[in-house]
Every structure is written in structure tokens, then in C-alpha cells.
């Protein structure tokens, strides 16, 4: 068990290091120069040279790389070229918004998805299964940015119920505490609904398949034969076994969820990490892109490790297999 966890941890570290290295060289070799963008078209060549020297961008690339690794290892991600503020501070302000959105949507889409999938797998009415399956297939097929756009069309422009942009209204500072909370929730509604609906389709489809495979399993028949109540059979025996592949998928879907969040944040101007990342890539803001790439790689690896751990919780048999 301990041995397995250590190898998994080392493998995760290697992945993070690889991602960071790849990002660093791709980013620095890409055309486009942050200094030119910073100084504008009127800048003299001498000014550009001076700025490059101050930022350390005139040094050889491997030296810059080693320097970055050394400082990042100590938690120093440098300062944003475009904003002049520490990159860690920029991301530090952005991550709560992304975390709120992503965590809430995981919670909603996974609980709802598992419940819907379980109902579909066990229902005796084929019509209900067919109808909800058509719905989950359609939801699963929708790109997040398009679904977001359609929801804005309906709820913001047609019905006028919900705001479409940002995380708070311009007048949020002047509202009472209760008013500010309502304001935040109203701004959260559409991005959250978008991410949840997209996730819901895939989760429901997957858990339906996992539950269905077990529907006629002998151990369920045995459990029923021993006179266990149906809810207990479903919850303790069928669901728990079906959750093993579902939980594995949860870990694997974290990167996809992160990318979905990037697009959804772009649509709703949600002030999160995705927004910062897209802007930083476009501005070639090296320190900020590197910091964001590092954090997202760490999150993805941590998600996979968490999923492996959750599988051993759900399925005791894998504890021996993992040594």
C-alpha cells in the first residue's frame, strides 16, 4: 500500500515536471514578444533591449529555465510582465472564483448524474429510460461555450432574469450583506448551470452503464434471496460496486473539467484562473502562464491520485492488488 502510494506520488511529480518543462520551452520558442507588447509600437530598439535585460529575457534559455525551476521550487513564480504584480498574487485572486465554480458543479453534476444513471438502469419503464437517455446524450454532445450562449440568450435577453457577465454587479459595493449575497448567487447561476449540465450528461451515461452491468449480477440475487430490503440492495451492493469505475472516471475527468471551465469562464467573463490563463497566453506573459500551468498540472495529478485513493476506499479488493 505505502509502496504503491510512493510510486504514484513520484510518477505524479515527474508528470508535473514534464508539463512545466514542455510549457516553458514551447512558450519561450513561440513567436510574439511580451516586451514589444508592453512598450507599444513607438518603442526604440534600445528601450526594448534595456527592458529585456531588466526582465532577464536576454539570457540563454536553459539558464532562464534553471533559474525559473529553482525559484518556483521555493514558491516564487516571479512578477507578471503585463501587470507588474506577482504572478502568484494574480492567480491567488483568481483561484477562489474557479474553485467555487468547479467544485459546486462537480458536486451537483456527480450527485445528480449518479442518481439519474441509477434510476435509468433500474427502471422497469423503457420509455422513461429512453427519454432520459436521449436527454443525457444530447447534453453530453453540447459544447460548453455554445450551451452557455444559449442559456444567456434565454435567461438574460429573452426572460431578463439573470445577469450574464462577471461575478458581481457594478453596484455590489453599495448593497447590504444580504443583497450582496443574492447578487453573487445570481451571477453564479448561469456559469454553474452551464458547467453542471455538461458534466451531468457524461456522468449519468457512465453510471447508467455501470449500474446496468450489475443489474443481473448473482450477488444481487443472493442479497435479495437473503431478504434484504430493495433500497439496501441497491445502495449498499449495486451502487457501491458500480461506483468503482465511476470514481476512476471522476479523477480522469478533472482535466476535461478544467478545460471546460476555461471556455465557460471566457463566455461569462468569470474572473477565474481560465480567464487569467487565456489572457496571459495571448500577451505572452511568461511568468503568469508558467504559474498557471504549474498549478493546473498539480491539480490534475492530485485529482488522479485522489481518484486512485477513493477507488481503494470503494473497493477493498484493490487494496491487496495495489500492495
Amino acid at each position: 500500500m505505502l509502496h504503491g502510494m510512493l510510486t504514484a506520488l513520484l510518477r505524479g511529480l515527474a508528470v508535473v515536471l514534464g508539463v512545466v518543462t514542455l510549457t516553458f520551452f514551447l512558450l519561450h520558442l513561440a513567436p510574439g514578444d511580451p516586451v514589444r507588447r508592453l512598450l507599444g509600437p513607438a518603442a526604440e530598439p534600445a528601450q526594448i533591449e534595456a527592458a529585456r535585460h531588466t526582465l532577464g529575457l536576454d539570457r540563454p534559455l536553459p539558464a532562464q529555465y534553471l533559474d525559473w525551476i529553482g525559484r518556483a521550487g521555493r514558491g516564487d513564480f516571479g512578477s507578471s510582465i503585463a501587470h507588474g504584480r506577482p504572478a502568484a498574487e494574480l492567480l491567488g485572486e483568481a483561484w477562489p472564483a474557479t474553485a467555487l465554480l468547479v467544485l459546486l458543479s462537480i458536486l451537483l453534476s456527480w450527485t445528480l448524474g449518479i442518481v439519474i444513471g441509477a434510476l435509468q438502469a433500474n427502471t422497469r419503464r423503457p420509455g422513461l429510460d429512453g427519454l432520459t437517455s436521449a436527454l443525457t446524450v444530447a447534453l453530453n454532445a453540447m459544447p460548453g461555450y455554445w450551451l452557455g450562449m444559449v442559456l444567456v440568450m434565454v435567461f438574460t435577453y429573452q426572460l431578463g432574469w439573470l445577469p450574464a457577465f462577471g461575478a458581481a454587479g457594478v453596484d455590489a459595493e453599495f448593497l447590504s450583506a444580504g443583497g450582496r449575497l443574492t447578487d453573487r448567487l445570481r451571477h453564479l447561476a448561469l456559469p454553474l448551470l452551464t458547467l453542471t449540465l455538461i458534466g451531468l450528461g457524461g456522468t449519468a451515461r457512465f453510471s447508467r452503464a455501470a449500474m446496468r452491468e450489475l443489474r443481473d449480477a448473482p450477488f444481487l440475487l443472493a442479497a435479495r434471496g437473503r431478504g434484504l430490503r430493495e433500497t439496501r440492495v441497491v445502495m449498499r451492493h449495486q451502487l457501491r460496486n458500480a461506483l468503482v469505475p465511476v470514481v476512476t472516471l471522476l479523477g480522469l475527468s478533472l482535466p476535461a473539467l478544467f478545460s471546460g471551465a476555461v471556455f465557460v469562464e471566457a463566455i461569462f467573463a468569470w474572473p477565474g484562473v481560465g480567464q487569467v490563463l487565456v489572457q496571459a497566453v495571448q500577451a505572452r506573459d511568461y511568468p503568469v502562464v508558467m504559474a498557471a500551468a504549474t498549478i493546473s498540472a498539480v491539480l490534475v495529478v492530485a485529482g488522479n491520485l485522489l481518484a486512485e485513493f477513493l477507488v481503494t476506499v470503494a473497493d477493498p479488493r484493490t487494496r491487496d492488488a495495489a500492495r
Partner: protein
Amino acid sequence: MRRASTVWRRLDLRSRIGLGLLILVIVAALLAPLLTTIGPDVQRDVAKTRFLAPFTSDIHQVFHPLGTDRLGRDVWARLVHGARVSLLVGVMAMTVSLLIGVIVGSAAAAGSRLARSVLLGVTDFGLGIPRVVLLLLLASLWQPSATLVVMVLGLTGWMPVARLVYAETRSQLARPFVEASAALGAGRLRILLRHALPNGMAPVMALATLGVGNAITLEAGLSFLGLGVQPPTASWGTMIASGRDTVVNAPWVGLAPGIALVLVVIGCTLVADGVRERR
């Protein structure tokens, strides 16, 4: 032709719906010039022909079944011509992924221990990279174009294929018929290419079908962020992106390509489900 009809008869209802959807879209894309009265990029008196609602005719007596966009271009013409770009990009990207994935996966399954751990290590490493970060970086490396999108999507999408091919080939290689053909004197390469790979191909094809839908969606996403196919070339992504700016006064501009995209992805999903469950 007889073969096609036997294949059709063997499919369940779900796969028939899916296949029907895909054929419909492919035929519309192939016949695009015949199905439209006006080119996808034609713009005339912009102020008088823009933002026309669906099912209206403009001052030039041209009928617009899906209306016009902000430059007065016919949305239906852009939709079917854009289908060519989007479908081609999706299929080509998946072909690149499939080629790399099959080579890496089968080499890992049939190769030596060292080859296996190296290839699987590379695959797992690739799976661990957040795809969007890589997509954003690669897409901004060179001048955005359809070819670049194909390469970028292909190079970032082969890892699940490799994993699946590896697992399938391993399980096929352990079966008695492999032993039998080895006893008959077949070489490793022949066993791999003639026996193990073809037998394990059904789930791989299911995954590839899903991957085509996924690639089309991602192409649209990249174009949406301005990193994919470039305007004025019509692709569903560029259409959705331009529709986003006119959500208030011309919602049909963004709705039409999105619905087309969802239909294609649904088609891919249904076909893949059918292939997978038939095993």
C-alpha cells in the same frame, strides 16, 4: 451494395438513428454547392441585407432559409460549407490520433518489457497534461490555420487510443488462436497485424467515432477563442463565435451551427454506443 444493406439490417434502432444523422450531415456537406443559391462568403449591400430573420428574402430576391449574419451572408450557405471544414478537421485530427495511438499501443503490447514501460510511460505522461493548456500553447505557436488545428488536435488526442489498443491487444495476444498461429509458424508481426489487432478493433473504432465528435467540438472551441480556423472561412466554430456577438438581435446566427454540431456529436455517440454494445 448488398453488404451495406446487411450492415444496416444488423444495427439496432439507436445506431440507425446515429448513422442516419451522420450520413445526412455528410451528404449535405458534400452537396453544399447544389443545396445553396448563394456562396458562403458573398456579401452585397451589407446595411440592407444583414440580420435578416430566417425564411425571408432580401432586396436582391435571394431567399435565406436560415437568415443572414451581420455582414449579410447567408447562414444556410455558411452552415453547409462550414460543415465541410468542420467534418474534415474532425476526421483528419482523429486519423492522426488513431495512427499514433495504434502504433504506440500495439508496440507496447507486443514489444519487450523495456519498450512497454517506455511507451506506456509516455502515454501516461501525455494523459496527465491538461489538454487545453497544450492546445492554447500549440495553437498560438504558429499562424492559426485548419492544418495547424488538425495537427494540434491529433497530437493531443492519441493517448486514450494508445491505452485502449494496448489493453485490447494484450488480451487478444493471450488467447488460444494466437498460440495456434504461432504453432503454425506465423511471425510476431504477422500475428499482431493479422490476428490480434483486427480482433480488438471494435472498441477502438467506437472510441475513434466518439473522438471525431470531440475533435469537431474542440475545433469549434479553438475557433471560438480565435485560435482555430480563421474568418472569413466558414467553420462551425467561427460561426458560433460571430453569433456570440449578435446574440441579442440575431440569435439564429449562433444557434444554427451549434445545433448542427450537437447533431453530429449525438450521431457519433449513438453509433459508438451501438458498436460497443454489439460485442
